[in-house]
């Protein structure tokens, strides 16, 4: 076998398709593989990965590696890393791309450390420079960007930010050789004893419209207005970390560097100042609307539309208009 650029997809839920982020990673891998004169491999680690495997081949992967077991529907720490390490070996990968997701922060550096490689997560750009890959990622939540060179002998493991590449077109019927990876015993050192709530409802990350509130709401009770507007517009409510810390909203609603990364068509930032760490979670929205009393607030440098006014006056008006539209 020869070198492949490896895309590593973990925690595929039973029978699930590839996610947008997985497709983007395949796109980014294709560009790198072309420059390196090799092919793309895709490792699929999860439960019932057949559908995802077919799709990966149809989207251009030339080698499919699968690890299929019910217990792999969620990222499984040390075990997932062991499987990923075998995939790297099978694909003879020097460059490993991991689509964005909640487990990257653990998987990328751990896999790299195990194989004497190195990792960069949150890469907004990956390219080839003097025969090696270079990754660019935000620092200080996005106030600046750093370009990283790889200095380790082992593989270069790169976790991707949203929208680094286009999802390659799907060519039905295209297939690729598939290899099953060994599935080791679960890593008994860490065991889940109380599972996270099984929320199967809509995810903030997938929402087409997000209405997010911040400290400018003045009081926790006013977050109800954010929820009402989101509901009236068929979207989902979000929050800045400041008000999650204050207990006005829940962590699952936090948008930003240390919360969710959202990519809606419209993002309302209401009473949010626009700190880089917040923008890291919403900068890829198609359109950002800011409502803020302070015309100098940083959020207006990122917004497409702005209203300089009190959130507590603007929100009720927006709710009313949204309801009229819906009715």
């Amino acid at each position, binding site marked *: 076998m020869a070198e492949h650029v490896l895309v590593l997809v973990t925690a595929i839920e039973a029978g699930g398709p590839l996610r947008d982020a997985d497709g983007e990673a395949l796109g980014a891998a294709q560009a790198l593989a072309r420059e390196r004169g090799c092919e793309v491999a895709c490792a699929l680690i999860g439960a019932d990965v057949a559908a995802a495997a077919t799709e990966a081949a149809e989207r251009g992967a030339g080698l499919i590696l699968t690890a299929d077991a019910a217990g792999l529907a969620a990222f499984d*720490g*040390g075990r997932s890393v062991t499987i990923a390490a075998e995939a790297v070996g099978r694909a003879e990968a020097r460059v490993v791309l991991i689509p964005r997701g*909640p487990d990257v*922060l*653990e998987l990328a*550096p*751990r896999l790299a*450390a*195990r194989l004497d490689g*190195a*990792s960069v997560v949150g890469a907004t750009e990956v390219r080839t420079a003097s025969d090696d890959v*270079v990754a660019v990622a*935000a*620092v*200080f*939540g996005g*106030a*600046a*960007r*750093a*370009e*990283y*060179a790889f*200095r380790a002998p082992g593989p270069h493991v790169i976790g991707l930010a949203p929208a680094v590449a286009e999802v390659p077109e799907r060519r039905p019927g295209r297939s690729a050789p598939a290899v099953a990876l060994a599935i080791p015993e679960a*890593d*008994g*050192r*860490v*065991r*889940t*004893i*109380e599972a*996270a709530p*099984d929320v199967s409802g809509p995810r903030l*990350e997938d929402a*087409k*419209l997000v209405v997010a509130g911040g400290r400018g709401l003045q009081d926790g009770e006013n977050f109800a207005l954010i929820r009402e507007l989101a509901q009236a517009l068929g979207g989902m409510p979000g929050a800045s*970390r400041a008000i999650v*810390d204050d207990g006005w909203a829940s*962590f*699952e609603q936090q948008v930003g560097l240390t919360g969710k990364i959202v990519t809606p*068509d419209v993002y309302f930032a209401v009473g949010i100042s626009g*700190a*880089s760490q917040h923008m890291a979670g919403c900068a890829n929205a198609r*359109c950002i*609307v800011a409502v803020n009393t302070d015309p100098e607030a*940083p959020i*207006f*440098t*990122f917004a*497409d*539309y*702005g*209203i300089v006014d009190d959130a507590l*006056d*603007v929100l009720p*008006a*927006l709710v009313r*208009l949204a309801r009229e*539209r819906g009715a």
Partner: protein
Amino acid sequence: MPTADASGGGLHIVVCAKQVLDPDGVNSFAFWGRLQVGGDGRSFDTGEMVPRIINAYDEQAVEAALRIRDARVDCRITVVTVGDEEAGAILKRCVAMGADDAVQIVDAAAGLGDGFRTARLLAGLIAELGDVDLVLCGRQGSDYDQGTVPAALAERLGAALVTMSAGVAVEGGTLRVVRVTPRGEEVVRATLPAVVSISNEIGTPRYPSSRRMMQARRQRPERREASDYEGAPGAVGVEVTRLMVPDVQGHCEIIEGGSAAEKAERLMAQLHERGLLGG
């Protein structure tokens, strides 16, 4: 990392902490367009105007360790940092909060964003300490946001790893850790030795009393050199070769109007016209 019998000789907890530029200071510098890259092309030149502070997540890791002690677990808490000469300053705060010992590894290459190097140095020190059961780290540095150290350290030490913790309790020689996941909280049990990374959900760290601050000021951290542990100087994982400050050009259209309601109406009309409101 051989683990001591946790029920017997007391638990040795190491907390890893780093010094960073105050992210709020960096944010406001960026906002006023004054964030500049220094002559080396890969660090900020803030003209010493932005203070260097303890990484907030690491301060929360110290808090997590102290809460283990508050729960009457017999333990010793050692804080360690890798950084330049000045970086040792953060250790005093950790000692004032309640840590027992402090060790600084002085490393000229720190600050180039290579968490793999930091993990290697920390692993060397932890092996030297010999009796470490539990390592607590912040989930990531608020400077490079990479979160490399806890993961790479666990791999190097062959220890269990639990990331994104909002609370750690020691129960009968094992850990009970509350983790923050995108779906909500989960609880895991982990064996020792372990590395646990602490997330901000753990809450506000305690404020050291002024008496403890005074005492801590006199205490000198133990000092080691990077050369005690490294194979070779310089980067071993990644190296920041260039920093770039984006030029954010605003393009915001301010919606004018006589009242909030009028502005709201114009905004909705705009969004509707652009087909951004779905159906």
